[in-house]
């Protein structure tokens, strides 16, 4: 029910963003809808956690709503920092990503039962691994939204500003994802399965995602590389992020499939 209300808020936010883009006005509404949506999704996560006696981050549904909440929060924080300079297009593209994730969460293929975790998932390292992964990926989602904006606009000054935003988002998300997704995940694997790294599909794609963003950060050091190249790499990075989270579960099952 709470996730459904949050979903409706995102629809309203998207509609208001489209209207404000078309009439070329500032957006004073949707950031607060996003913040409220994030609050509701986090509340849903907390309620489920109390029901199972463990942080509710152990299945795809819980991962999707938490990821959506983090994206909404990052968009809201962006609005708080930028105020009048907030780019509505960026809010729109970011909200679209969050909306698609929530739509997926509400689909019948994703089980929504509240179930306590099996023994392999009962670990403090899981909490660190999953929360930091999604927080890092929320910044990647934001960089994706700005990258799409970069591709769409023609104004060179706006492109420069977008490029700076993409870099700052990835610079923030990269260490958080690196620590959470890779390092804490490896530590958890060591305690659960007896090896830090097994090259299972989820781990391999998480590493590939990290390598794509490593590529992005290093490409920016080379002066002759055009900005559009780094923007395309940022887009590819987020596609890898989505495939690591969702595609691997359904197309390449391994140890991580629960």
């Amino acid at each position, binding site marked *: 029910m709470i996730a459904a209300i949050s979903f409706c808020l995102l629809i309203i936010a998207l509609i208001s963003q489209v209207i404000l883009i078309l009439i070329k006005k500032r957006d004073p509404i949707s950031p607060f809808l996003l913040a409220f949506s994030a609050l509701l999704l986090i509340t849903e996560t907390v309620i489920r956690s109390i029901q199972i006696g463990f942080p509710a981050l152990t299945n795809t549904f819980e991962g999707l709503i938490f990821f959506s909440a983090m994206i909404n929060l990052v968009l809201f924080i962006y609005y708080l920092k930028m105020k009048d300079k907030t780019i509505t297009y960026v809010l729109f593209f970011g909200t679209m990503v969050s909306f698609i994730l929530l739509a997926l969460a509400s689909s019948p293929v994703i089980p929504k039962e509240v*179930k306590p975790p099996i023994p392999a998932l009962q670990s403090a390292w899981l909490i660190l691994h999953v929360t930091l992964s999604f927080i890092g990926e929320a910044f990647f989602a934001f960089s994706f939204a700005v990258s799409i904006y970069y591709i769409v606009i023609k104004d060179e000054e706006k492109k420069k500003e977008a490029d700076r935003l993409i870099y700052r988002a990835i610079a923030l998300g990269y260490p958080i994802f690196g*620590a959470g997704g890779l390092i804490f995940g490896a530590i958890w694997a060591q*305690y659960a399965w*007896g090896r830090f790294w097994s090259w299972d599909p989820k781990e391999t794609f998480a590493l*590939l995602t990290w*390598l*794509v963003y490593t*590529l992005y950060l290093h490409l920016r050091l080379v002066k002759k590389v055009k900005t559009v190249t780094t923007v395309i790499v940022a887009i590819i990075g987020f596609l890898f992020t989505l495939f690591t989270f969702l595609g691997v579960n359904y197309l390449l099952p391994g140890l991580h499939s629960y």
Partner: protein
Amino acid sequence: MKKLPAPLHFFFSVRLAILLIVILISLSLIAAFIPQNLTLAEYQKLYAHTPDIIVMLIFRLGLHRFFRSVLFFVPAGLFFINLTLCTVDRFFRQLTSGTRKKRFGPDIVHLGLMILLIGGLVSLFTRNEDFAWLSRGDQVRLPGNRIITVESIEYLNYADGRPMDYLTRVRITGPDEQPGEFTIEVNKPLTIGFIMIYQNSYQERFLIEVKDPAGKIIKLTNRQELKTPEGSYLFKALRPINKEEPGSSSVEYAAVFDRISRGEPGNSVEITAGKSLDGYLLQETSQIAVTGLSFVRDYGIIPVWIGIILLLSGLCWTYIQKIGENNNQ
């Protein structure tokens, strides 16, 4: 620093790092979609709808064991060399430069990554893993003449029957130490020196005791063979034959066997306690809990942990410094 000739200078460059990252991403992406470590027959079955050359290429190029192949180790090795040279070069350039703003955070991150990769290599060559199915009372001997004895095995489940926890309680005795009792759980391995013992699996197994015509007792669990002069029988399961609830002490079971003919399972045979099969008397039937423990020894753990600590420290240092600079502007 004196300018190196162009070919050598390339090894110190970010461009080489970028090239190697692109190569590693591309090759790893291909390998990630190919199931790893299967046999030739399994790949032929999996890719039966594709031309034969596909499977041949998978094997020839080492894509079936990509992460242990030359195709992976060469670019990864070059990446390690490039990373080392760039890190050393960057570190000394900062140290000798006159600028006040020095950022060693990324150097510590790179150093951590290098040590992590070394740890991975050490693990590749020194990691040893053994697995054992043990029931209550079974013992395992470890290096240093230590003996682990399984004292109890416990399976806890949720109300819906899903597993909640598996616990194995063990007692460790050794020539130079006081006996100790420990519990091994999933995510909570037991460490003894360089050996870590993991709670890997749990099973409920059927156990039967059979007395042969000479009076010798033979114990069999699921999938074990009973060889008699007249044939071989594969013990499959226990089937409850009265109306009491399975698991209750008053349930009677029949032992179910598959007769093995020319190496293949044939007809089923069932006997109850007190009855014979080819002169072999079934005396007792029971169900026992069996724990699956993994024993892992890996000398790579130490450099991996050092690498992790350095990586995390370097990341923190980089960002604390960056935030400090932003606040000062």
